[in-house]
């Protein structure tokens, strides 16, 4: 039997506010346990949650970016369950009236574009952290994370493969960072995802029973978890069995998914509107304000890079995938005097390569766009060749000197003086009469040998175009 995989994602993006969703405590990552958990976050009696206006603005911004309906009124609800890192006994979330309604996002898989529906996006608070190790049989609770604002983005079951699911997740990841509403840091848990998976016989319209894989925080694990879960379900279905609707955990070490039975009974959350919070109203003023702040989105930027700079699709895609990377590239184009293609190569190849090696992001680059622009200016005005520029780039990486200083102190200036180049070439021709005869007898390939020798003798500093020209003339004689 041929099976079709049906996947929907619930993505949790932590909003990058300074304070929590319902209290004025800091959300900074990495503080000592419980030093950023105030009375509201601890759920002490008598406190009242007050909504952070920045959280509302960010959710509206996201809604606009996916062309979604934004609710005039949205309502917070209590989701009730007991767990020690949830001190109130309920999580404040949204149920019937989420802030962001139906929207969509286009993904690329291969050279196909596919539209994925977004069912809704709602605001909620995060829970604290449980530490299970080494407290003499007790569990330690850190409530610094309790009350951190989250935007939960729920997709339609529109994805049909692990590839599509990862492409969609990457697109959302890219978008929230573009909008500057989340730092998207997956190691710190700022961006994580639940995956709903079911199988159905190809051609059938009804969905099969689904399993939910909880809390996956890397693209690689999402892909692997889907492969593993699809295999598990396929085996059960082909043996004539049926899938149980349940929450499962993906164990990356064992590459298997397993049931979280303890979650089953608790799945009755008894949602009801939170009496501590009034309906949230989105005014037309706020809508207009957010709309005006909306940056150029990744897809529009990519199209502009294709049209304005005539980049290849892959380069445009790569550069437009991150806003700081795109800004860096455009700064180079404006100030370096080099072609957009040269700038694109330097950013995508030299710079990105060096950053990846050190595991740095573009914003942590030791070479700023201004410094790199000066280096590229020296290629554009023929002071150095592209090859020598790579040497200068390496030197710039490890100290703060400008490209000009490095070229000067290391004596890397290109030799464009044809007299100097002629002298080198004369000597090489005199020393290699055998090769000269081969060349004259029609072996054109030997020409490369002469170019190589000349560049070597000049320590790479001779202008290659000049070398070619002079060599051709001299060898003719």
């Amino acid at each position, binding site marked *: 039997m041929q099976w079709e995989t049906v996947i929907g994602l619930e993505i949790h993006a932590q909003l990058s506010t300074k*304070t929590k969703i319902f209290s004025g405590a800091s959300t900074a990552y990495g503080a*000592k346990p419980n030093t950023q958990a105030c009375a509201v976050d601890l759920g002490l009696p008598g406190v009242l949650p007050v909504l*952070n206006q920045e959280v509302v603005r960010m959710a509206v911004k996201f809604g606009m970016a996916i062309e979604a309906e934004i609710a005039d009124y949205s309502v917070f609800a209590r989701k009730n369950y007991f767990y020690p890192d949830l001190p109130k006994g309920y999580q404040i979330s949204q149920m019937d009236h989420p802030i962001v309604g139906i929207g969509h996002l286009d993904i690329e898989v291969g050279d196909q574009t596919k539209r994925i529906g977004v069912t809704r996006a709602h605001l909620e608070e995060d829970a604290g952290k449980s530490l299970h190790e080494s407290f003499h049989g007790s*569990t330690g609770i*850190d409530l610094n994370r309790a009350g951190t604002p989250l935007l939960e983005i729920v997709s339609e079951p529109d994805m049909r493969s692990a590839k599509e699911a990862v492409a969609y997740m990457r697109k959302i990841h890219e978008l929230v960072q573009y909008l500057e509403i989340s730092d998207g840091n997956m190691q710190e848990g700022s961006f994580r995802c639940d995956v709903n998976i079911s199988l159905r016989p190809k051609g059938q319209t009804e969905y099969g029973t689904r399993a939910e894989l909880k809390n996956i925080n890397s693209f690689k694990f999402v892909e692997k978890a889907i492969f593993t879960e699809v295999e598990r379900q396929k085996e059960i279905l082909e043996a004539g069995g049926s899938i149980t609707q349940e929450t499962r955990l993906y164990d990356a070490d064992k590459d298997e998914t397993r049931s979280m039975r303890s979650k089953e009974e608790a799945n009755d959350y008894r949602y009801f509107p939170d009496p501590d919070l009034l309906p949230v109203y989105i005014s037309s003023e706020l809508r207009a304000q957010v709309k005006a702040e909306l940056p150029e989105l990744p897809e529009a930027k990519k199209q502009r890079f294709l049209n304005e700079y005539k980049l290849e699709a892959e380069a445009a895609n790569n550069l437009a995938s991150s806003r700081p990377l795109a800004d860096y590239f455009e700064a180079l184009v404006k100030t370096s005097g080099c072609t957009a293609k040269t700038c694109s190569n330097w950013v995508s190849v030299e710079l990105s390569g060096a950053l990846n090696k050190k595991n740095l992001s573009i914003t942590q680059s030791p070479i700023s766009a201004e410094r790199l622009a000066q280096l590229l200016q020296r290629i554009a005005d023929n002071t150095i060749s592209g090859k020598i520029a790579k040497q200068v780039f390496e030197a710039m990486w490890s100290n703060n000197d400008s490209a000009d200083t490095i070229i000067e102190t290391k004596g890397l200036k290109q030799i464009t003086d044809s007299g100097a180049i002629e002298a080198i070439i004369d000597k090489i021709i005199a020393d290699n009469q055998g090769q000269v005869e081969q060349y004259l007898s029609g072996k054109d390939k030997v020409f490369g040998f002469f170019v190589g020798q000349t560049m070597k003798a000049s320590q790479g500093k001779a202008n290659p175009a000049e070398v070619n020209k002079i060599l051709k003339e001299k060898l003719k004689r």
Partner: protein
Amino acid sequence: MSLTTDDVNKIAYLARLGINAKDTASYTENLSDMLKLVEQMSSIDTDNVTPMAHPLDTIQRLRPDKIIEDNQRDHFQSIAPQTEEGLYLVPKVLD
């Protein structure tokens, strides 16, 4: 709609309430009466009435995104039964 004693036991478990078995019958009756009252209200035609999310007819006030809370960990932990290395300790929970 009437509840069964099993329903009542489940509701009590979800709310983590320890109820006395001899009281279950009276709880079942009381809760069923409440549901009947709701049923009675449901029979009223509300097609042209906009549902309220809150009895106060006003909107949520928002606060600026500004840190106003200090670290009061020691103060809060002075009433906690058990703490260690800044953490609140609770009986072991594992999934």
